């Protein structure tokens, strides 16, 4: 298992490299540059800007130096000052007082002069991760029980009701649900603040909010429900289908034949088996939720990562495009790996080596 994971991680690096190459190529093939503004700038100004961001170099050089900045660990002999946004490494590890290992410099962003892409990652990504995670939790809290009830009460009114709720969840996009929720709960009833997010840097472990009280939840509730509802529908359907299949299995009959209580038959014997496929989609689902927060963030005014990507493409903010795609790619690949590991953990029949 250990060797398997190591091999997978090495393979991940290759995948990420390829992804970086494709993205870089694609991104630079899109016409237009980052400094094309409505008020067109004099050539001298553009030249200054391109020089500052090394865009005056040939593409292959830019790519290689990007790879060097991001993938190759660097060594510094004094505490990095971080005066220059172009000199900001995501990972700065102090070995001794005169020896620092620095890794992953995603470069400056063109959209902000005092921040690097890493700053965006540090400050905006945690919000998206929190939002995505909460949405996932909401999805699980709503979806799994809904699926279980539907399966246990198959072909009854509960089943139809549950599944209708589930389909409603996939069918009504956040674009509609979000403003409606704001209108109802934020403006009319004034139960919850219409917009905003309840945590700001610093974050515990780089992504966990420091407060989890009502001040946090009152902001988090609406957006995570809006975002999670669609996924809860998917989970509900999956749980239902999976549980329906599992309760037809022979070992459920065995459990009944042993005299296990019906409740324990479901909880102790059926549920775990039926949740295996459910758990395995949580990884990709989490990745999807974290990467798909754009609409929710915009609707609820949440300072997350989502809009950076969309606007960075419009603005040709190359480092942000590269950074986000790479980061999300890592996220997806890691999520897939975690799923595989989780799978092996949950299902003793699966073994990797």
């Amino acid at each position, binding site marked *: 298992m250990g060797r398997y994971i190591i091999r997978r991680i090495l*393979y991940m690096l*290759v995948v990420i490299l390829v992804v970086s190459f494709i993205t870089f190529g694609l991104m630079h093939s899109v016409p237009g540059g980052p400094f094309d503004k409505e008020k067109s700038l004099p050539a001298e100004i553009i030249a200054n800007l391109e020089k500052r961001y090394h865009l005056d170099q040939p593409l292959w050089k830019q790519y290689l130096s990007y790879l060097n900045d991001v993938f190759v660990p660097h060594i510094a002999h004094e505490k990095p000052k971080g005066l220059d946004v172009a000199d900001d490494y995501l990972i700065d590890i102090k070995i001794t007082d005169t020896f620092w290992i620095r890794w992953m410099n995603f470069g400056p962003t063109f959209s902000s002069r005092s921040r690097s892409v890493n700053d965006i990652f540090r400050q905006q990504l945690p919000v998206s991760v929190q939002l995505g995670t909460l949405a996932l939790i909401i999805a699980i809290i709503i979806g799994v029980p809904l699926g279980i009830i539907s399966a246990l009460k198959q072909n009854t009114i509960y089943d139809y009701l549950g599944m209708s709720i589930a389909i409603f969840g996939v069918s009504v996009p956040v674009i509609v649900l979000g403003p409606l929720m704001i209108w109802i709960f934020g403006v009319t009833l004034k139960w919850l603040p219409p917009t905003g997010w309840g945590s700001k840097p610093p974050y515990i472990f780089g992504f966990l909010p420091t407060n989890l009280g009502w001040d946090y939840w009152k902001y988090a509730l609406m957006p995570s429900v809006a975002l999670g509802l669609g996924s809860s529908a998917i989970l509900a359907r999956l749980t239902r289908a999976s549980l329906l299949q599992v309760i037809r299995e022979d070992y459920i009959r065995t459990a009944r034949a042993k005299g296990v209580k019906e409740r324990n038959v479901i909880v102790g014997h059926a549920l775990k088996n039926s949740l295996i496929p459910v758990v395995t989609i949580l990884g990709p689902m989490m990745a999807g939720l974290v990467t798909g927060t754009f609409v929710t963030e915009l609707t609820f005014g949440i300072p997350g990562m989502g809009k950076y990507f969309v606007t960075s493409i419009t603005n040709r903010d190359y480092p942000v495009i590269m950074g986000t795609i790479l980061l999300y790619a890592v996220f997806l690949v890691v999520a897939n790996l975690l799923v595989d590991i989780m799978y092996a953990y949950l299902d003793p029949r699966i073994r990797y080596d």
Partner: protein
Amino acid sequence: MKVESAEILLRVDNLVKHFPIKRGIIIQKTIGAIHAVDGVSFNIHKGETLGLVGESGCGKSTTGRTILQLYRPTSGHVYYNDIDLSTIKGEELRKMRRKMQMIFQDPYASLNPRMTIGEIIGEPLVIHHLADKKGTQARVEDLLELVGLSGRFYNRFPHEFSGGQRQRIGVARALAVNPDLIICDEPISALDVSIQAQVVNLLEDLQKEFNLTYLFIAHDLSMVRHISDRVAVMYLGVIMELATRYDLYNDPLHPYTKALLSAVPIPDPVAEEKRHRTILKGDVPSPVNPPSGCRFRTRCPIAVEICAQLKPEFREVKPGHWVACHLV
């Protein structure tokens, strides 16, 4: 019993089939092999039925498939009428396939559920351009009648048929190209008792009518005894004993054969009461890492030291009676 001197139709010479076990995400490397068939030799004479028995996983099905070149052998040769099948390929092999057909174990999985019975049985005719459309239908209807089904079933789909009927369809398909050799890979083990007899009788009848040669693969010793002229007993990729059915069942020499025979239940309480049974201990070892020397030694009730060291030679201890055991 058929004449010993009849011409040899199929000669299997030291056939080996290993399935590599591969690992790796980008670059796969072979880290081991399943020794499915590990040096098997036998002949099949024209018109005879050779039974091949053994427990699941002993390599009997792999042997059948390797003979047909569905799996290419790792080493060894398969001669069909002195043509080495293991060296030919492509169009040549495709042509040879007309001569050898197979009947499969699972009557549900062996018929394409998306094709009509007519298409299934007619397919070999189409592939080998043996008949035009009209001729195909006529031939298929004949074949259906031959295996005891109505020709009117031409346009129906496999899922409408019962297991036994499907197995008949499988037989009809195999017969469509007028083969000489049919490899019956456990053709009856998935069927109910009363249906098994129907299919076995059909096979016997067809053999007589078309002078077919069968390699009959099964785990049911009583059925093998019933249908075969000669019987080979396989264990972990190796043939342990090969003899005429009379010799094998009345005078089994190999301890494994003996144990197998004694394990076969007899539908007679009186006989059962009187029987002395040899109960083998444990399970069949893994074919990935088979035991050294004699493959059977780990379960053999009479194993001695040499069995672990030396692989017993497969030798003819009596005329037509071959055994691989140090102690015989």
